[in-house]
């Protein structure tokens, strides 16, 4: 999927770029993921980014294609980890099932390398998977597999420099997370260093479906939007089209994980996943 003409220019910024103020022009050259999301945003769309646990079921690659066709703007692919502390029961179970079927980081990247998907892909995994492989090796393997971005929820901005140096060099965009507890000054630091998009954590808690949208989702979306011009996507606790639409009154888009993964665990398959993503698409398009 990463034909050379689409490949991202190398990230150019280091710690010195942290000073992005409210609405500041991005001091970095957007990579493929960010460029694509910005383009969609500028075309007037809200962004839908579904999360799929890599290696969950033999047909997970078909699911990837199906959700892309159903209107996903980018796709988050989870590389399962044995101890996912940011994940609730649904993604824990999906991770465990995937690991039990023999999934490894390399098997996921191998599959991704061989597939054509029209939208950018970001992997979501935990830092130990990256640390074990080695920063440079993981960054170049992601790039070779055509992966545009990486999300590491247990690697906060303060500890991220060694990884982001390698990722920037390989052209992999590191998406950082901002939480409801993040103070303003840290938020500016995070905004200044996030690439691809800014992942605004919608509530205090781990991933999982919630019946109501938390007030904190809109609050964090507003704070992030005021602090950066990078696309702001709210994830964690966004569980259906209605909640996605509500969040998109403020945010640029949503990441939807557990609600989709639960359907996959229940056997929805690629068609069921596509139908759900189409629902989300329709929901935010009404916004």
């Amino acid at each position: 999927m990463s034909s050379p003409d689409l490949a991202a220019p190398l990230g150019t910024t280091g710690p010195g770029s942290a000073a992005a103020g409210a609405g500041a022009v991005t001091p970095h050259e957007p990579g493929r993921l960010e460029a694509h999301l910005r383009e969609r945003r500028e075309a007037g769309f809200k962004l839908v980014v579904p999360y799929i646990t890599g290696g969950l079921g033999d047909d997970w690659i078909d699911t990837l294609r199906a959700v892309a066709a159903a209107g996903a703007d980018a796709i988050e692919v989870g590389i399962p980890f044995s101890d996912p502390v940011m994940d609730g029961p649904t993604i824990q179970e999906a991770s465990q099932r995937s690991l039990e079927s023999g999934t490894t980081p390399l098997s996921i990247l191998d599959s991704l390398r061989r597939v054509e998907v029209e939208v950018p892909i970001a992997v979501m995994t935990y830092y130990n998977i990256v640390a074990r492989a080695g920063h440079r090796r993981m960054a170049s393997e992601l790039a070779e597999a055509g992966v545009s971005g990486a999300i590491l929820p247990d690697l906060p901005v303060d500890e991220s420099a060694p990884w982001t140096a390698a990722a920037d060099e390989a052209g992999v965009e590191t998406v950082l997370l901002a939480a409801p507890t993040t103070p303003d000054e840290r938020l500016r630091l995070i905004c200044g260093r996030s690439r691809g998009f800014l992942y605004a954590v919608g509530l205090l808690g781990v991933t999982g479906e919630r019946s109501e949208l938390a007030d904190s989702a809109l609050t964090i979306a507003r704070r992030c939007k005021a602090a950066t011009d990078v696309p702001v996507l709210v994830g964690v606790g966004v569980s259906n089209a209605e909640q996605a639409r509500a969040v998109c009154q403020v945010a640029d888009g949503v990441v939807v994980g557990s609600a989709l993964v639960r359907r996959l665990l229940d056997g929805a398959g690629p068609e069921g996943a596509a139908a759900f993503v189409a629902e989300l698409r329709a929901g935010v398009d009404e916004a």
Partner: protein
Amino acid sequence: MSIEKTHDGEPSGAGASGLMGAPGPSGRFGEFGGRFVPESLVPACIGLEEAFADAWADPEYRARLDGLLASYAGRPTPVTECSRLSERLGVRVLLKREDLAHTGSHKINNVLGQALLAERMGKKRLIAETGAGQHGVASATAAALLGLDCVVYMGEVDVERQALNVFRMRLLGAEVRPVSSGSRTLKDAVNDALRDWVASVETTHYCLGSVMGPHPYPYMVRQFQRVVGDEALGQCRALLGGRDPDVVVACIGGGSNAAGTFAGFVDTAAALVGVEAAGGAALGNGLPGVVHGMRSQFLQDEMGQVLEAHSISAGLDYPGIGPEHAYLAAIGRASYHAVDDGEVLQAFQLLARTEGIIPALEPAHAVAWLVRAAASGQLAAGSTALLTMSGRGDKDVEQVMEMLA
């Protein structure tokens, strides 16, 4: 004790060796340590670091803690000369008797410190992980004492093999939440405690039970446990005519009783020995990694998936080790060894029969190493060993009874 600050470039409070003072920037011990937690928790960890630095430098807080350690926990704990065991091994053995502390282990030292800190930070709810149940019991105890709510996460396997402690926690008013994910032991209890904390961080203090996790826990817990080593140093010198023991040995789960003990002796000539369970030997068989908020050594596969530890001792059934131990091992100041379940069962009975002390299975690991090292000559005949008897064996008697049947 000198006042210590955790801020960069300020006095570390370390003694002559420069070891076991405050960690370096962002909680580093050499390359180990750090703070690898979800963003939601970073502000709380920073807040805790500041609150601890502030409290530790506050004479009023220290007096309150020392008062509770004395009048409630029963400190100082004695050092016991083990004549019959010494005769048997040909090595002079002294035990630092944390088994005599209130709640039956060293865990109370750390928990009183953290519970007072939680109170100071205005947090009304404690969460804790527990393996053997000793940290859970200590947390439940401190919560009862200070009128705090307490939830303890415990792997299902441990709920079963440490049933006595589960009942104790419930008697003390704590809620015990069995954890059914992964290996259903200590590692998974930590995962669920972290997940709880991600959601509850504004009202809840995570009372972590060992020298592990994100900064400032490894440092803070070691400071709360250093009372063990600081007391023992003076007690040993009194018993040994001003000399220090040749070797100081303690068992290692996350490493808190060992770290507290070592902190008292790191500036002496004593050899420092940590003893892991053979099935949980993070330093023996682990690889560098980042799990549970810290860079340290972990049992893991070549792809970075954490492996399950296996030990008869619920308290040592953990695939990682505190970062400061990883550092002390890397620079060669302490050495780490592993003993297997069979040796531990032997040592458990040996100490009971020779000294009338039934140890917890965790410190029975340290005894087992001593037996082996004395027999192999690794410990020269006539040398003196201080061993931290980190807890008493009541909780393990039923399990051992079944294993010996």
